[in-house]
């Protein structure tokens, strides 16, 4: 394993120093490991806090800024943040209109945000939580941990962030966040596993002729293993999985997401196939993102996330955003 790090222990803190040095619009609290907007809370605006394990950059710190998050709480690599971070972050960004926690559905994230929310509520803070669980590779059921939160997190953060910017109340911001999640589905395919700095070994082994279908964003192996195929066929498998869960049609927002190790030229090849596969089903990719947005360290592969748009969601998606990783309209 070769990694551009000083030590496995200091990766997250070192990266936060880099974030602070690179982005004057952000303020970093390295001790508590929180990334805020430098501009501070805006009175009357709902504060958006998200967080999760590191290793998924630009998620979440890269989405802090005007029109999106107010603060991000990065945990250790692939480990959810601790409640203290979430509590501190919420207190710092609360403009009096309450705080929305955007939580990806993993046991660790859920439990730690849950504890934080309880403690915040005890101290009189208005807190709502929205759970992102868009990954159709995992079958949902009452008796399991439920679906994982993956690519839709970017959509939820962007769209809820845009609504919050208008001064909408907490309940409304939470409502739209849940709506985005309900309308979004993701599926991932890995060509290779990833290697965490701490373990130093790939999280699973794939041969030169295999892919992992339905892979998670922590290097968890997926639903099944299959033979490597050309991009067109891998995309068909992914779009079929999305379609089976929630039939695609109409205007959709699409993200073709690299996992950290995929060359951008391959993501464009993939996007071309996704757009075709959607068109074949009568859906139109009217808005899109192509690139690395929710990564898994150095994993190679792609995920597709589709969100079924409404007029409101399209408008909020198009609204100005100014963060390190998403920027437009301003």
């Amino acid at each position, binding site marked *: 394993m070769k990694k551009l790090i000083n030590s496995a222990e200091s990766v997250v803190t070192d990266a936060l120093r880099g974030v602070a040095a690179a982005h004057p619009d952000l303020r970093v609290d390295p001790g508590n490991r929180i990334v805020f907007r430098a501009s501070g809370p805006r009175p009357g605006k709902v504060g958006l806090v998200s967080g999760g*394990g590191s290793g998924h950059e630009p998620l979440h710190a890269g989405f802090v800024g005007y029109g999106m998050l107010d603060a991000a709480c990065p*945990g*250790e*690599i*692939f*480990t*959810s*943040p*601790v*409640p*203290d971070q979430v509590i501190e972050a919420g207190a710092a960004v609360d403009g009096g209109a309450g705080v929305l926690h955007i939580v990806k559905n*993993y*046991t*660790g994230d859920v*439990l*730690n945000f*849950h*504890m934080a929310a309880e403690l915040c509520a005890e101290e009189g803070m208005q807190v709502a939580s929205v759970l992102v669980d868009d990954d159709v*590779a*995992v*079958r949902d059921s009452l*008796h*399991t*941990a439920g679906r*994982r939160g993956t690519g839709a997190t970017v959509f939820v953060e962007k769209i809820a962030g845009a609504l919050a910017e208008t001064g909408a109340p907490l309940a409304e911001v939470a409502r739209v966040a849940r709506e985005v999640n309900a309308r979004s589905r993701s599926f991932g395919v890995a060509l290779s596993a990833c290697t*965490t700095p*701490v*373990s130093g*070994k790939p*999280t*699973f082994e794939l041969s030169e002729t295999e892919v992992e279908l339905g892979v*998670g964003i*922590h*290097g*968890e*192996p997926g*639903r099944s293993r299959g033979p490597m195929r050309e991009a067109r066929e891998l995309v068909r498998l992914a779009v079929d999985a999305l379609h089976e869960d929630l039939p695609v049609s109409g205007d959709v927002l699409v993200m073709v997401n690299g996992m950290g190790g995929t060359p951008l030229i391959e993501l464009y090849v993939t996007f071309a196939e996704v757009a075709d596969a959607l068109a074949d089903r009568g859906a139109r990719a009217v808005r899109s993102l192509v690139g690395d947005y929710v990564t898994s360290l150095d994993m190679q592969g792609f995920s597709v996330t589709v969100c079924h748009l409404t007029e409101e969601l399209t408008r909020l998606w198009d609204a100005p955003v100014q963060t390190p990783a998403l920027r437009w309209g301003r």
Partner: protein
Amino acid sequence: MDIEPFRLWIEEIAGSVRAEKDMLTRLDAAIGDADHGANLERGFDAALQAVRDRAPATPGALLTLVGTTLIRKVGGASGPLYGTAFREAGRALGEAPAVSAADLAGALEAGLAGVVKLGSAAEGDKTMVDALTPAVETLARAARDRDDLTGRELAEALRAAAEAAGKGAEATIPMQARKGRASYLGPRSIGHRDPGATSAALIVSALHRAVTR
């Protein structure tokens, strides 16, 4: 039992987590995300440090401090779960400067209940609950049968509890996970030992060693 064996317990846990870190991580790599060893090392090193720095006065205060530290430092699923376990156990012990074997058993029962309430895993779901439940039951049964246990009897009960925890962890191998990250694998989680059940067994063993040291 005064506070000393509880202090030793945390020391023993930190030592065995450090020694078994790679093994725990390897188990987590197979059906999770390869961080369980690092998570627990970070957590119990910090807990040990907190116990040294803050020198809690009672067993209850010590366990509560350990639990709070785990919650604050570990993250992941295991942080809040183990953290809650220690906090609930500490709360059950109250402020007594010394506790009986029955108190200890009651505290561990409270800790386990906290884990189950927070994570809503049942036995058979392939989690730490599968190691903790038989261990706690073994100790509780021994303590329930008698007024109080002698030192030797307590040691023997804890040995049996540790053995039960180890068996419980072993028994997770053929299970299909229904909670935590491993559940994403569905049937492919079968055939692997659960990392949290394995660390739970280490924690119970550590208690046995702490009491007999």
